[in-house]
């Protein structure tokens, strides 16, 4: 079915936002994404990681932070298999899996990503499965992050 979303691949939710609308706080993430690197905001006051980037540390209320590079791997914390398209033009990408991935190298809550998880069988994917990040370089600005099973 032709639609507004371009050619679709089963299991891959298409990029629908092409601009990052980044501010100073968010830009380091998108800069690293261009180089296929995952960086995460890190409180230099207490060491807590947080995602997405935000002005204050929820643990110690410090504004001091830097960005630390993470291994880019993680574990599926929860997920859903979207079988019914929310928009008729999205039928060809269903079913797709999207969920919560807890990032290796962080401290649990505060550094999860909500992502489309690709290259998985929607009938066997499960919480606890190991995944790694992969970026789709959409344009000079946006690199859409997705996760896929660790291949190596």
């Amino acid at each position: 079915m032709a639609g507004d979303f371009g050619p679709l691949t089963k299991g891959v939710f298409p990029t629908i936002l092409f601009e990052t609308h980044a501010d100073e706080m968010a830009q380091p993430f998108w800069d690293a994404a261009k180089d296929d690197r995952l960086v995460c905001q890190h409180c230099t006051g207490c060491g807590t990681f947080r995602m997405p980037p935000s002005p204050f540390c929820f643990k110690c209320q410090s504004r001091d932070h830097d960005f630390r590079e993470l291994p880019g791997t993680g574990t599926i914390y929860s997920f859903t298999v979207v079988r019914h398209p929310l928009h008729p033009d999205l039928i060809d990408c269903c079913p797709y899996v999207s969920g919560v991935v807890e990032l290796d190298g962080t401290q649990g809550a505060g550094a999860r990503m909500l992502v489309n998880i690709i290259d998985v069988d929607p009938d066997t994917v499960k919480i606890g499965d190991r995944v790694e990040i992969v970026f789709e370089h959409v344009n000079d600005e946006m690199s859409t992050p997705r996760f896929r099973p660790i291949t190596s």
Partner: protein
Amino acid sequence: MNTIRDKCAIVGVGTTEYYKRGQSYPETELSMACTAILAALDDAGLTIDDLDGFSIYSSSCDPATVGAELGVPEIRWATTTTSGGGGCVGALGVAAAAIATGQATTIVSLMTLQQLNKRLGGSAVGGMLQYAMMSEGGSPYGGSGIAPSAAFTANNGLLSPGHSFAQITSRHMHLYGTTREQIAEVALSSRRNASTNPRALRPEPLTIDDYFNARMINDPLCLFDYTMESDGAVAVITTSVERARTLRQPPVLISAASHGGAGRWGPALFKYFQTPDEHFATSGHRPVAQRMYEMAGVGPSDVDVALLYDHFAPMVLIQLEDYGFCPIGEGGPFVADGNIRYGTGSIPVNTHGGNLSEAYIIGMTHVREAVEQLRGTAANQVEGAEVALVTGGPAGLPVSGAILRKDV
């Protein structure tokens, strides 16, 4: 301690009929709000001259517009609890607080809803992208601008409240072994109650086979785990308990109401999900439940009927845990054992059919049902019902809970 306990009462309930999505046209949200308010005042034996406050949630109406339309002589109170449907019974507590402190005398709480060119959750009618753009601080009913945080989730395919609530459900199933068979019991029990409620929009029978043959919307949620889209308005009038005892209807006391939740639950469900581990697979209601029970001086074993916000069936099962009807993680076996059934269960739940099978006016239908149960006029009357629990959410904070009781 100074609390609102039993200082105020719900004295009037008014509604439009419940409609399937869009069928309320050519009525409008304003006209339905006014209809419900006038009906609620009339139910109480009051008139528009008595009304002097609005305590609403999710910015359900504009008190300025309604006040002008109906010619309210003086408005002394106009507040909304923030976020969405989670605040629905919290608004009753705010009304009681205003009245108990002398800042108003007669307050309406209401929801009015028409889904013609908008759909809750911002789904397919042009709103999908809008939902995807929402970030912390947004609500499922609309956003404002594109925040820098939005790009972190906009392209992930999580587009609707159902996609979000599935994350909590999947995690609950993973941690506790909760099954779809157990979740089905919530949907089936609600439907049985709807079948004997003349105003229910989904009264037709639902079997376990129907449930398992229904299409999966997004795992683990199937069609019958979802609420419906409906139109209508429900309004309730709150006043002081002393005045309530002089009015037309038996007063329904607001014994306690609490709204809020753990700070890091935050906007939890809507493009956030950084909820701490100990809160993730919950309804977000635990802190609210504790405060509410303390205020009312009752516990779960005192509750005769529970009207639990049920936009998605598994959220009933999880609220039963968080409100102490069963231990944490045992909501599945608890419902599977028939405990929530009307007539035979230990705690009848959503005797009207709930959001799942009666109507979804974002929670206010549960308040109506609680009042009718405590007046003794419900379609599926729980014999001798004296204490009702009503909840709003799970949703982004605040979520809310209230204990209503018969004036005995």
